């Protein structure tokens, strides 16, 4: 009695561990506040907006179709292989099993990378081969086959080979005998293999991450690209719906008597009326639904692809760095379809553009990265005849751009800003005007640092009174020492999560881009932004067109559209990053924002700030190396 109590409690505890995060996600899907860190009351609005969010629905269809197709194909190949392997001699069978184990035991990251290397090599032979739906599907089939084989083989071993031979003796053809005698026995194995393959495909992130291309997102990669900025609440709603659907199906399936697996049981009970209905539901309705999803999704996807087969422009931009309505308006006005991709850091964007696995038409890197791309001959000259709206961009920003684009031939400024400290007035009681506060032991575990090499080093170098483009090894060493000293005080190294964490009072101080400061202040009025007196970084993100762009003119049309004052203003309202479009700034109704020193700092503040420069491969490596030393401390 006590024993069974303990057992139940233990089971309960483990289930609590397994399902606590899931309950959390379900609760978050009803949170009317946009950030996950604040409870804004109960709301169903995310469920409504989910179905209007074409991005997420598209990712859902891609995910389901890839999961279904890869599960189907791998079930076919895997089941055939399992049957064939029974007929092989021992030596071959062991070898085949060893090969089968490779994707199972190999690290996801190694499997993903090896497939990526293979697909890149394919491009050497077929230059038109590009990353996307097909590569993800191939990859998923590859890691799914072993699950099927390993589910089918145990069932095959249990089958009695004499019944098969008896069937042959009685005149059945091998195929007839197989389907009448062997197949019913291994069917549960095939089913569980299929289900497993489907689940694995659905849940995979790492391999998809390495094998997908522009415009093709599964839910996993979509979520990963949102992690830094904060997950869109619609995603929670979708996951909740998926989860509840599966739970419901499971309950239906399990209340039905399991005819498939009941061959072990001695007495077969006569099925009750209810279970017969449930059984029909499982055997007829569920497969019919699945087919419906495949076909419907296929049509939908095909329609999508046909749309993208026309005029298009492939844009590669920072995460949440444009008002989605702007994209819709552009598509409506020009009929050019926008394939939109996001990146997190300059450093992660660069290799993707350089590798050319996807040919982007328009990219939005920062100053020093543009210089690097120029030096490596990756950029195409922009034809400014197609961009008459350039006249709305303030002259001073074009002047500033000359630091990385000396003749203003390759780039059009999009957003700019500074790097500074965001602090919570209720948690910090002294006036903040210096980087030194980031080294104050009082704030141990209250500091959020930027997780990017140049920003972290820029801060340390500025604090020490050096240039943030330093190439002096002693200065860099000193900066490294300083950052190492700081590490125990740091709560986390973050990129964009600083926003959510500051809003929810997780930390007292955070290093942040000025553009995020306005948004965070509107969510939490206790926050204040300051550019420290030692000076900081002033940066410009500009549109550039890579050399291998396929739709250069569309890209120019897109830039021109974005430079239109009303559009630039709309965009500013949404992303709150300072716009270099002076005409757009004049359109801002709210004085407080138009004259905000956060969005548009005065010249004396700016004079203390420096722009990053590209320091060359050698110093790139030195910076990266020093940063890694800090991180692994």
């Amino acid at each position, binding site marked *: 009695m006590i024993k069974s109590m303990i057992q139940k409690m233990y089971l309960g505890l483990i289930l609590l561990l397994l399902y606590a995060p899931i309950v959390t996600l379900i609760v978050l899907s009803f949170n009317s506040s946009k950030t996950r860190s604040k409870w804004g009351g109960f709301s169903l609005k995310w469920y409504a907006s989910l179905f209007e969010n074409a991005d997420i629905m598209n990712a859902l269809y891609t995910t389901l179709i890839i999961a279904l197709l890869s599960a189907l194909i791998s079930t076919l190949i895997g089941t055939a292989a399992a049957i064939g392997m029974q007929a092989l001699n021992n030596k071959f069978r062991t070898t085949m099993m060893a090969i089968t184990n490779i994707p199972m035991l190999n690290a996801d990251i190694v499997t993903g990378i090896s497939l990526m290397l293979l697909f890149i090599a394919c491009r050497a032979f077929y230059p038109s081969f590009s990353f996307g739906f097909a590569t993800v599907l191939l990859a998923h089939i590859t890691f799914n*086959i072993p699950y099927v084989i390993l589910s089918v083989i145990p069932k095959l071993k249990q089958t009695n080979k004499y019944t098969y031979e008896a069937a042959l003796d009685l005149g059945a053809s091998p195929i007839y005998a197989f389907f009448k005698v062997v197949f019913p026995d291994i069917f549960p194995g095939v089913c569980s293999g299929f289900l497993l393959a489907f*689940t694995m495909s659905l849940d995979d992130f790492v391999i998809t991450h390495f094998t997908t291309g522009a415009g093709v997102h599964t839910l*996993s990669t979509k979520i990963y690209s949102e992690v830094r900025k904060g997950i869109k609440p619609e995603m929670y709603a979708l996951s909740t719906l998926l989860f509840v659907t599966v739970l419901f199906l499971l309950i239906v399936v399990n209340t039905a008597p399991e005819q498939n697996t009941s061959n072990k049981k001695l007495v077969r009970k006569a099925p009750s009326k209810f279970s017969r209905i449930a059984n029909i539901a499982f055997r007829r309705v569920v497969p019919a639904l699945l087919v419906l999803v495949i076909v419907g999704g296929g049509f939908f996807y095909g329609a999508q692809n046909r749309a993208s087969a026309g005029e298009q422009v492939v844009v590669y931009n920072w995460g949440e760095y444009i008002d989605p309505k702007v994209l819709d308006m552009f598509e409506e006005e020009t009929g050019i379809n926008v394939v939109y991709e996001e990146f997190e850091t300059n450093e992660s964007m660069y290799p993707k553009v350089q590798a050319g696995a996807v040919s982007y038409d328009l990219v939005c890197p920062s100053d020093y990265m543009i210089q690097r791309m120029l030096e490596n001959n990756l950029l195409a000259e922009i034809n400014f005849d197609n961009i008459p709206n350039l006249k709305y961009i303030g002259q001073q920003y074009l002047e500033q751009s000359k630091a990385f684009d000396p003749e203003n031939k390759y780039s059009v400024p999009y957003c700019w800003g500074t790097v500074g400290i965001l602090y919570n007035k209720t948690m910090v009681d002294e006036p903040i005007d210096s980087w030194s506060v980031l080294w104050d032991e009082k704030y141990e575990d209250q500091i959020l640092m930027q997780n990017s090499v140049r920003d972290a080093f820029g801060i340390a170098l500025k604090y020490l009174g050096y240039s943030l483009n330093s190439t002096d090894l002693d200065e860099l060493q000193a900066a490294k020492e300083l950052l190492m000293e700081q590490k125990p005080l740091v709560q986390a190294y973050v990129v964009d999560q600083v926003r959510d964490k500051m809003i929810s009072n997780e930390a007292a101080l955070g290093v942040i881009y000025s553009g995020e400061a306005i948004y965070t202040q509107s969510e939490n009025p206790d926050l204040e932004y300051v550019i420290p007196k030692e000076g900081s970084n002033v940066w410009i993100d500009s549109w550039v067109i890579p050399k291998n762009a396929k739709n250069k003119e569309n890209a120019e049309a897109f830039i021109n559209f974005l430079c239109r004052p009303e559009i630039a203003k709309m965009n500013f309202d949404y992303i709150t990053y300072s716009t270099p479009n002076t005409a757009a700034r004049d359109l801002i109704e709210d004085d407080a924002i138009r004259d905000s020193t956060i969005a548009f700092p005065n010249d004396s503040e700016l004079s203390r700030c420096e722009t990053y420069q590209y320091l060359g491969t050698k110093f790139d490596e030195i910076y*990266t190396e020093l940063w890694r030393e800090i991180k692994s401390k």
Partner: protein
Amino acid sequence: MKNSKKLLTGPYLFWAIAFIIIPIIMIFFYGLTDADNNFTLMNLAEITTPENLKALGLSLLLSFISTVICLILAYPLAVILSNKNVNQSSFIVLIFILPMWMNFLLRTLAWQTLLEKNGVINAVLSFLHLPELNIINTPYAIVLGMVYNFLPFMVLPIYNVLIKIDKDVINAARDLGANAAQVFTKVILPLSVPGIISGITMVFVPALTTFVISDILGGSKILLIGNVIEQEFTQSYNWHVGSGLSLVLMIFIIFSMALVSKYDKDGEGTAF
């Protein structure tokens, strides 16, 4: 007849060569050459830099701890589950697969919401006037994330070997005078070794190579070997070093494959 059956392995053989063997060869190629395609062992030697060694050491330590915790949690669980009514068994097993339908990244992110300083768990603790739990952005949070994500891969193989144990064997042991402890140590435990070994490798390898869990729950303060490799490929763009380090990781994978084939000759301990 046998020959035509053998032909059924054809498609898979083709697939395996194209998408398993050749990619592995590509990794070897990149790992053993430099930027000018000359043979070199330098990429493998990268593992000996203090930072990479530290990342590897930490990865080994954390994944070892996670594996041990998983084993300790999973074994009793598998025993309890295997004693349940057979009719419910598939349902119970599915309960462990069910969480996988909620995206892996979202599940891990949810732990962030739970563990944060102002998170759910601390709210509950402070309501109960208990001390706060501050493990977010520490190795403890990473271990928790690993245990959480990989526990089903330990439970299922052990469960699968346990339900296959013939009840008559256990009854025979009892009849011959063995007490409960003896039945367990002399009969059940030895018979479940294939499942345990398979579970260990299925937890240890993904834990060793993860880069997502350490990223999300470690606050990017903690660098594991998976993070190093991911950065080599996606940020430093140094495929040669990245492949070299992957080759080093493969040593551990080969080791676990050998372990599995030694203890689990019949493939009994498969997870599913």
